[in-house]
Each structure stands twice: as C-alpha cells, then as structure tokens.
C-alpha cells in the first residue's frame, strides 16, 4: 500500500499509542480509517473542494494526538451561557465531568460523552458510513484517533427545554491534535438547541467530526462558536441528514485560529425539510478561514436559506465555497444562498464561490456573492456626528455582521455570540495594515 509521506507521523503515533480495551468493531474501524488516511494523504489544491484553502500551517509540522490535560473552572466560566443549560465540557478532547452538569436531563434524552456512550450504549453509532466515502482524509484521521465527543440522542417527541452547551477547550504547550467525534440523533418530533464553543490556548489542532440525523418533524437549532487560540488549527466537519418536515437552523461564528475550516454537508432526504445555514467569519492578522457547504436537495419541497458574511482585515484570507444541488426528483425546491464580504484592508483577500446545480425544472433558486469595502458615505455621516473614526468603523462592521447574527433564533444564544463579536471588535489592533 502506498502511504503519503505527510501522513507518516500520524501513522507512527497510532502504532505507538495505547489502544487497549476497546470493543473489536471499533478497533477494526480505527485500523481501516487509518489506512484510508494514509492512502488519501492531505488534501491538495488540485481538489476542487480544497482549491482555496491554504493548509500550510497544518503541513509544516505534525500534531501528535493530545494525551489529555486539565482546565480550571475559570476557563469555562467565560464561555458559559447565562441561563440554565445541560453542560458538557471537554478538555483536550476528553470529557471533563467535574466541569460538566447533565443532572437535569428529562426522560427520553441521552446526553453523554462519546466514550461513555460507546461503553454503555454501543448500539448508538458514532462512526458512520460517511467515513468510508469521499475524499475526507481528516475525517478518516478522526475516525482512527477520536478520543471523545458528545452524543445527544432524543426519543420521539422529546423536547429539550434547556439548551445543551458543549464547551471544547484546547490547551497545549507543544503541537497536539484533538480528535472529537460527536453525534446528534433526534428521533421524529423531538427538538433541541445546541451550542458548541471552541476555545483554548496554545498550538493545538482541533479536528472535529459531527454527525447529525434529524427524524421526521424533528427540529435542531445549532450554534458553533469558533473562538480558538490564535495559534490553533480548527477543522470541523458536520454531516447532516434531514427527514421529511425536519428543520435545522445552524449558525457558525468563526473568529479564532490561525487556520480554520468548517465543512457542512447536508442531505435533505425527506419531503418538506427546512434548512437554515448561516454564519459569519471575522478575520484579522494572517488568519486563514474557509466555510465550505454542500447541500443536496434530494427530496421535493425542501427549503434552504443560506447567508454567510465575512469581515476580513489585515492580511487575512477568507474563503466561501458553497454548493447547492437540486436533484431531478426535488421539485418545488426553494433555495437561496448568499455570501457577502467586507474587506478592511488592501492586503486582505477573499475567495468566494457560490454554486448551484439544478436538475429539476420547477424550483425557486438563487445565489450570489459580494465583496466590498466599508461604505465611505456612512462612515462620514457617523463621524460628522462626533463619533471617532475607530468607533464608527466598529459600528459599521458590527452592523454588517448583524443581519447574519439576527438569523439566530431566541435569546439563549445571541448574547453569547454578541459578546464574542464585541470582544473581536474591541481588539483595536490594526485591521487595515
């Protein structure tokens, strides 16, 4: 078998790592996934899906799997929601029960760490078929190495009143990789709200894979807040499947990390499923971030609303690659995709590639992308009223990002996101160097 050289350190780490005591199917799956990773190698720019993403930060050194770690409660405090929540904290890819609280779970709700789930309820699949399909080498690497994650499974008709908050903390002195494997399975008619936050300190690599399965009429509001350390690498892949009449509203806020990529792949498998896919990325310094979404309208009468807004300053590089495919049977599809970007400096760059592939004839679809500067006349208007230039710029940037943020339903998550956005805006480094 041919093994790509850049994968060798990871394969060596796997061979030397402790893997005792796991049930045989899992161990076999890990072996198979590792072999796949070795054969695939890192993605290259020759692959369309990775054409614009600069992976240099990941390629120039290797990130051995983290051996664990601890975090003080104060590190969690700053990330918590204001109200009551089912809270799960993972530190360096391992569940930290002392920082977590899932004591108030209602009947019919399973919310546990992935490791606990594998031990106590192995029938819940945490590795899915997708791991052996497509060119997703990092998902394969994740399948080989994953230490932990979160599994949420709701029985039919169960509605979680409190939101679930999942806090991932990375803490590393030297390069280390955290492989998180999570799953959300909502049975027909069940409902949940989930916020995942990623933060930390040091040069770690978060490699997260999340599978989401929504049964008929199930509904999930999902927020992903990426505010990783400035040295961190963050790769997250979410795969979703929606049955008839299910609803998913996702919002991702990308602020941190030296290199960040979020892949969201959605199959609208049942009639009348509704998808909201929104987010914002705000980049400065030499940050590199990609949002890559793939939406497959495989059933009739489904809707997609997708809006991503980018604010890119300094020498940062933002990428949006979004594709929506409408299959021949997916009549009455209603899909709209929009990516808008604000460039704050002459050396900031954005690559945006929205794409629609329509094979049905009775559909309503649109897509578009814009890249622009701050509105000079608006800036002058604010300044003419006494508002200093820096504050005026902040107000306009915040306003630009706000309409994406406004897609987040309810009051549980929005203040958390707004606080992180404010903190970003408050960092008065040169956005325009």
């Amino acid at each position, binding site marked *: 078998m041919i093994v790509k050289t850049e994968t060798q350190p990871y394969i060596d780490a796997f061979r030397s790592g402790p893997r005792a005591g796991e049930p045989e199917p899992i161990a076999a799956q890990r072996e198979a996934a590792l072999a796949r990773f070795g054969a695939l190698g890192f993605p290259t720019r020759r692959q369309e899906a990775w054409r614009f993403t600069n992976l240099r930060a990941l390629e120039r050194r290797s990130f051995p799997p983290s051996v664990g770690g601890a975090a003080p409660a104060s590190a969690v405090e700053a990330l918590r929601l204001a109200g009551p929540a089912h809270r799960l904290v993972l530190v360096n890819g391992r569940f930290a029960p002392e920082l977590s609280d899932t004591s108030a779970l209602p009947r019919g709700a399973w919310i546990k760490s992935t490791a606990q789930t594998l031990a106590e309820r192995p029938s819940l699949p945490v590795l899915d078929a997708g791991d052996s399909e497509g060119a997703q080498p990092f998902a394969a690497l994740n399948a080989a190495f994953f230490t932990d994650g979160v599994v949420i499974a709701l029985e039919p008709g169960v509605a979680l009143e409190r939101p679930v908050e999942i806090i991932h903390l990375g803490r590393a002195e030297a390069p280390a990789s955290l492989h998180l494997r999570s799953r959300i399975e909502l049975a027909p008619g069940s409902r949940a709200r989930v916020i995942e936050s990623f933060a930390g300190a040091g040069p770690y690599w978060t490699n997260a894979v999340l599978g989401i399965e929504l049964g008929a009429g199930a509904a999930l509001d999902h927020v992903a807040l990426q505010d990783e350390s400035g040295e961190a690498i963050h790769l997250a892949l979410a795969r979703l499947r929606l049955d008839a009449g299910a609803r998913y509203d996702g919002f991702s806020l990308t602020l941190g990390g030296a290199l960040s990529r979020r892949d969201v792949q959605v199959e609208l498998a049942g009639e009348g499923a509704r998808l909201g896919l929104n987010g914002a990325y705000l980049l400065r310094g030499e940050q590199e971030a990609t949002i890559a979404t793939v939406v497959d309208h495989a059933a009739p009468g489904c809707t997609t609303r997708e809006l991503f807004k980018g604010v890119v300053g300094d020498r940062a590089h933002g990428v949006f690659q979004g594709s929506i495919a409408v299959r021949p049977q997916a009549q009455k599809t209603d899909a709209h995709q929009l990516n808008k970007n604000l460039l704050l400096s002459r050396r900031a760059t954005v690559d945006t590639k929205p794409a629609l592939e329509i094979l049905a004839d009775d559909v309503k679809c649109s897509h578009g992308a814009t890249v622009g500067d701050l*509105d*000079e*006349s*608006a800036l*002058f*208007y*604010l*300044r*003419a*009223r*006494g*508002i*200093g*230039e820096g*504050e*005026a710029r902040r*107000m*306009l940037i*915040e*306003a*630009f990002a*706000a*309409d994406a943020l406004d897609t987040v339903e309810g009051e549980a998550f929005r203040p958390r996101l707004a606080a992180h956005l404010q903190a970003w805006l408050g960092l008065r480094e040169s956005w325009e160097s």
Partner: protein
Amino acid sequence: MLEIKNLHARIADGREILKGIDLAVASGEVHAIMGPNGSGKSTLAGVLSGRPGYEVTEGAVVYRGRDLLALGPDERAREGVFLAFQYPVEIPGVNNMYFLRAALNAVRRARGEPELDAGQFLKAVRAKLKLLEIGDDLLQRAVNVGFSGGEKKRNEIFQMAMLEPRLAILDETDSGLDIDALRVVAGGINKLRAPDRAMVLITHYQRLLDYIEPDRVHVLSGGRIVKSGDKTLAAELEKHGYAAFEAA
C-alpha cells in the same frame, strides 16, 4: 464664531469650485447662503464639515479661534459644528437610538460632561421630541433606512437638537419637503435659535426664508459671494432671479 477668508477649494477631478469665499458669522446670527445650482453651495458645506473629496488650495477657516480645516470631521462635530445633510445617509443595521447615543456621548465627553446612561438619554430624547413636536416613530429604526424625505430631514433637525451645536450648517434642508414638512422642520430650526448658536442656511429657494428670518443673506455665484445684504435681499432674489447677480 466663524470666519472664512479667501477660501479656495477644488474637487477630485481638479476643478476649482470655491474661488475665494469671505464670510464672517457671529454667535447668535442666522445667515442664509443662496445660490443657483453649481454655484458651490454644497462644496462649501462639504469643506466646512470635513467631507472627503475636497482639497482646499488657498485661504483659511477659523472657528472659535481654531483652524477648522486642521480638524477631522468627528473632531469638528465634537467642537460643536453640525452639518444637516442634504442627503442623509442610510445605514442599515445601525439603530437610530444607538447611533444618537454614541454621538451624544462622544460630544459630551469632548465637552467634559458625563456620559448619559440609557435612562437619562431616553429622557433627553423625549424632551427634544416634544420641543420639536415630532413623533418617536423614527427612533427604533435603522439610521435613515426606509425614511421618507421628510422623515430624513426631521431626523437631521432632531439630531441637531440633541447635539446642541454652536455652529449649525444646514445644507438644502428645505429640498424635497412638502409644505407641511417644511413648516415642521423650519419650526424646529427656529426653536433652536439661541444667542450662543450660529446657523448657516444653505438653500436654493427663498421659501425656507418665509419661515426662518435670517440676519444676513449672501448670494453665492461662481464660487464667490457676489452680494450680501439683510433679509430683503432674499425677496429681491425671488423677484429678479439669480441672473441679475451672476459673477462676471
């Protein structure tokens, strides 16, 4: 309060628009600057407020003993200069109240006054709304977004009332207003006349002066002030048109 001396300015394409303006406005006075299209009215407002896109090539503007042209637009505003825009800018996503509070507190900080908290600010807003006899329907919307022409101009005068400038420059505040809106806006301006405040009304038409009585009227033509007089000059203009005053 304001002294403009031999002001020359050109626009980005190099054309000289202002060709030697001289004007002195004292505290408490209201001056009207009238002129036909292309005479340099908006350029003058732009230069005084620090709008980008103009280059002053000669002359000086002294405001309360300071070189006004050396200040950025926000500094001018904090020093008490207010421009009522001919075309107020729509700013989606920025709430009108949030904007106004940020502006007022910036101005108050510069004056050495304490910032207003949300409650105090609301109280001040209510008082000014009452003074100007305008409703509060504009407050919860984004700045000027979806406002009618009249609403935009009312909003400008409301901002002026809140910020309490020492020098207000009103650029074509009467344009695009029907007679009822004009009456409301002019009434607001009259209420804001004060001994320690100067106003410069820039207008094409005489009709604004039916409601606001100026102390001085100046005719601007070809980038220069070609005639100055008292309020009767406005009536003369109305009768004879600008042609009689065209710069040679």
